[in-house]
């Protein structure tokens, strides 16, 4: 209670300072207009920049989590496996990313992806009007086809960055499993793949769910960084809205609330997963 009281006092103080020192007129109407607007032509409410940005951030969070989890699982296993080459590669990857600021990594890597990787894969010449790309499902999953390569490069940067941390969590999880579990699996003649799939990973993942959840929430928050390579997610569009409306406080408070809601929801989902995992284990 004391803590909440302290926060309330702090918020009141800041509001008072803003009001009295900056002589700030609060005006939420223009900012809220950028969340959703009434389209007179179709006679319906449509999402505007901020909501579109939120959707892009949700897409980034969704695909980024999946991609980072897959990379983290594979490279995390490499960190523990017997093959020296894989151990060196995975260690290098982790150390490289953990010791460079995310922003710097993303500036460098964005150049590599957009100018080298995508042309090599032919992704930059994707036909935006083909029925494969220009449909409702694609829009829901990846956003505007015109922005797809931009979205994808941001996504890959983000996932690669977060995956380095997930790699270390996975490694710790695998190494926490008792040696006897490996031996018992080998003794009943399981192949290495089956041993990992049926015995090691299921137990490791239960153990690492809490730090994994934390890392996924960090991923959502870190997604704001890729606004700097012009991926049109929430932070990028919010800074545009703030600039156009010059309603700086309103815009960022609203955006903060959106991020909070998203992360809080995510944490909730994970807490439920955790409870289910611990129940089945008894």
């Amino acid at each position, binding site marked *: 209670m004391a803590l909440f009281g302290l926060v309330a006092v702090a918020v009141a103080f800041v509001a008072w300072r803003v009001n009295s020192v900056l002589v700030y007129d609060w005006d939420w109407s223009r900012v809220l207009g950028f969340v959703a607007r009434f389209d007179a032509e179709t006679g319906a409410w449509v999402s505007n920049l901020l909501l579109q940005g939120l959707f892009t951030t949700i897409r980034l969070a969704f695909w980024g989590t999946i991609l980072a989890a897959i990379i983290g699982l594979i490279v995390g296993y490499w960190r523990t496996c017997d093959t020296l080459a894989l151990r060196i590669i995975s260690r290098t990857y982790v150390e490289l990313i953990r010791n460079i600021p995310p922003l710097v990594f993303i500036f460098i890597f964005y150049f590599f992806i957009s100018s080298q990787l995508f042309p090599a894969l032919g992704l930059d010449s994707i036909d935006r009007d083909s029925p494969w790309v220009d449909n409702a499902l694609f829009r829901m999953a990846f956003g505007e086809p015109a922005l797809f390569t931009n979205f994808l490069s941001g996504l890959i940067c983000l996932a690669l960055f977060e995956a380095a941390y997930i790699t270390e969590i996975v490694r710790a999880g695998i190494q926490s499993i008792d040696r006897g*579990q490996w031996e*018992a699996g*080998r*003794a*009943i*003649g*399981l192949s290495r793949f089956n041993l990992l799939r*049926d015995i090691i990973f299921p137990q490791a993942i239960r153990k690492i769910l809490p730090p994994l959840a934390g890392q996924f929430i960090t991923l959502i928050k870190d997604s704001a960084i890729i606004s700097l390579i012009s991926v049109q997610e929430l932070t990028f569009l919010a800074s545009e809205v703030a600039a156009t409306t010059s309603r700086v406080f309103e815009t960022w408070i609203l955006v903060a609330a959106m991020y909070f809601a998203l992360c809080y929801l995510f944490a909730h989902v994970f807490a439920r997963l955790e409870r289910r995992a611990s129940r089945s284990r*008894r």
Partner: protein
Amino acid sequence: MPSTPLVEISGLSKWYEDFSALHDISLTVAEGEKVVICGPSGSGKSTLIRCINQLEEHQQGTIRVAGQEVRPGMKGIEAIRREVGMVFQGFNLFPHMTVLDNLTLGPIRNRGMDRAAARKLAMEYLDKVRIAEQADKYPPQLSGGQQQRVAIARALCMQPRVMLFDEPTSALDPEMIAGVLDVMEGLARDGMTMIVVTHEMGFARRVADRVVFMDEGEIVEIAPPEQFFNAPRTERAKLFLGQLLAH
């Protein structure tokens, strides 16, 4: 007694850096034979039986299981492991799976058995170790003795030709030991080939065809149990037995 050799070990040596764990071990176990391996801790008993299914790799010598040579890092080791069941001191059941799933995993994955057949087989073996009513529980819900019996059933489910026991009762409370030994003796009566590392000398007397005494990575003495316990030939065996009886 049947005399087809099932496990043939000859000239086996293993070392870590400059520590010699096993030195020039030769031992042949015939089909249906029960061999008990005993010796002071650190004498290499566990290491020896763990070489048979390659949980440990050896550096020298040959091991054959059912005529097939077992080599470190070999491809197809899974095919040999299905002939060699193993029971560990610490049970090593899979805690995230039910007892039944613990048993069916090997037959389904290694023998390619379908789920229904594997379940039927698993229930037969659970019945045999007298624990069928616990099939749907998770291992941590069972007592140590029950867990070890499940572990025995899990190994049997692979329908191995030889069973290795690595100090199966050492981690158990005294009142749990009898139940596990009963199951093992039943198995022996059914004619299973068994190699047992244990300090249970009563079990060795009742069940073993031969007792192998190891010390400092070497086989010191091999003798029938009566002879070994009543009239050991070597000083080291006498010393060891004296220490066992002392407490």
